[in-house]
């Protein structure tokens, strides 16, 4: 047998397990879901019925879809907040201090433990009557002689989204983004700062003239990844903490998709939501590349 034939056989041998799984659980499903998005199907009675672009027309006329899209985008306010926090923490950690590892470990805890347990904890924290947050607000008020009453948080349509955003910032601020920023800060050449000092720059100037442009690839990377993640986020916390309420104020697109498919058996409609999501994510990637492409400093 020729060496090349042998190599090809070996190569496909190594690929087979992954390739089979890939075909069965990724490639075929992607195509199936595209087909499904043009069908009506309740997954119970009979085969799917082809309805053309009806699902998409219905979707764009669906007030709930627009409401939940707005929710999804609104919750992404946590991205700039968390990124700014990560950068500030990374700048503080970058001062060659002792005990960096301790701080980094503590900051990482919320990221590591993300999940149902943490959402349950925050549901308790946000409890309007005996939650520790409102208790602290009330006590802080007493100290200065005021009667303060915290908001109803998860029970109030106006406060439910900010509540989830605050939790989201707490969860992500000291995690992967901070580590990425720390690595980026350590990669900025010392000479640049020395040169800026010779020119008489203070810390503020140095940050904007040297640090910020130098770490912009990292900022760019984190922003893109977060936005892409943001469009698909929001199911787990909302399911555990609010059930999507009050009055749908914490339902995001992925939650709507879940309900459409698995609560209301509208498989075709849900597939259409998935594809809209996919297109948004895809366009955002390209748009961001174009937009940031000019300001990113390589």
């Amino acid at each position, binding site marked *: 047998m020729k060496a090349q034939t042998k190599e090809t056989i070996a190569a496909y041998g190594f690929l087979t397990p992954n390739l089979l799984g890939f075909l069965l659980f990724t490639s075929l499903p992607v195509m199936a879901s595209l087909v499904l998005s043009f069908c009506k199907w309740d997954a119970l009675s009979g085969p799917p019925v082809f309805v053309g672009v009806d699902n998409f027309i219905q979707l764009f006329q669906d007030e709930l879809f627009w409401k939940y899209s707005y929710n999804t985008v609104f919750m992404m306010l946590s991205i700039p907040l968390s990124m700014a926090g990560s950068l500030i923490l990374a700048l503080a*950690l970058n001062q060659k201090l002792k005990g960096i590892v301790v701080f980094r470990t503590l900051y990482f805890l919320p990221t590591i433990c993300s*999940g149902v347990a943490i959402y349950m904890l925050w549901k308790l924290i946000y409890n309007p009557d005996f939650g520790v947050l409102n208790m602290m607000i009330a006590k802080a008020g007493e100290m200065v002689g005021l009667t303060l009453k915290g908001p109803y948080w998860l029970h109030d349509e106006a406060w439910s989204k900010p509540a989830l955003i605050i939790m989201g910032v707490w969860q992500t601020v*000291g995690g992967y983004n901070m580590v990425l920023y720390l690595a980026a800060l350590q990669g900025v050449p010392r000479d640049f700062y020395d040169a800026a000092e010779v020119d008489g720059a203070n810390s503020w100037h140095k940050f904007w003239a040297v640090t910020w442009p130098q770490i912009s690839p990292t900022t760019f990377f984190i922003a893109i990844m977060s936005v892409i993640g943001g469009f698909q986020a929001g199911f787990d916390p909302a399911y555990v903490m609010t059930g999507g309420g009050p009055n749908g104020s914490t339902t995001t697109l992925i939650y709507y998709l879940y309900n459409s498919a698995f609560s209301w058996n509208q498989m075709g409609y849900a597939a259409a939501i998935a594809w809209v999501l996919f297109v948004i994510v895809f366009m955002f990637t390209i748009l961001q590349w174009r937009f940031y492409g000019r300001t990113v400093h390589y």
Partner: protein
Amino acid sequence: MNAEQLKRRHRQRQFVKKTGAYIFLTIGAVTMVGPFLWMVSTSLKNPGDVFSYSKVWWSEWIPTKFVWQNYVQAWHVVPFAKFYLNSIFVSFAITLGQVATSAMAAYSFARLRFPGRDRLFFAYLATMMVPGAVTMIPVFILLEKLGWVDTFKAMILPSMFTAYGTFMLRQFFMTLPRDLEDAAKIDGCSYTGIFWRIILPLSKPALATLTTFTFMGSWMSFMWPLIVMNTHEKFTLPIGLAYFQSLHGTDWTLLMAGSLMMILPILLVFMFNQRFFVEGIKLSGIKG
């Protein structure tokens, strides 16, 4: 101003800057850890004390009496031990499957030449952009047709193959020196031998990183198990805990005890594998 004075001023400014940084970082650390302390404190409280309120600012943070019984009780109101075993089994199976199949495919992509390699690899890369939401529904329908819904297979199999793991390991394998392999080939070593005896031992850090991330990801996985599982006895911890909440939503002491028991193994994994996190992030620039 002489040099001595300048030096002293510089040192003073450094001191102020560092002190400021410490204060700031400490406030940050308290904010990060505070909620966890609340979790611990609630889990040890007398159920009635959860609703108590006093004038002293710190009094709610320390239980008046440590009720260890909460942990025992949390273990018994729902089949917590079952959830634990299920989670361990499912997470191990997913991790083992994912690391093994990814490593094999990555070796093929990184080191072997075969027709269609680059196109196939591009297809893998392209799917990394596809949101999980797109494949979720068809995979569920497929599992239903196979009669696998509400079985461990439904939780494990779809999560066993990822383009991401393949991509990450391939990038790492590409950086390994080829000399050892060439020498082994001359000695008549088979491809399997090279993979097993050279590539894998050299890739321990990357494999450890992927293992850690995959394990933690599957331990916390919520949405997919929620979709495919119905029988309580087969629940993993995350959906088991949510089920617990649906039954005893106001038993905060028990809920917090259960939550703590759920995150404990993750904390241990993190403490022992911490360097893999930092390395892993740098290695591939991945998130979550």
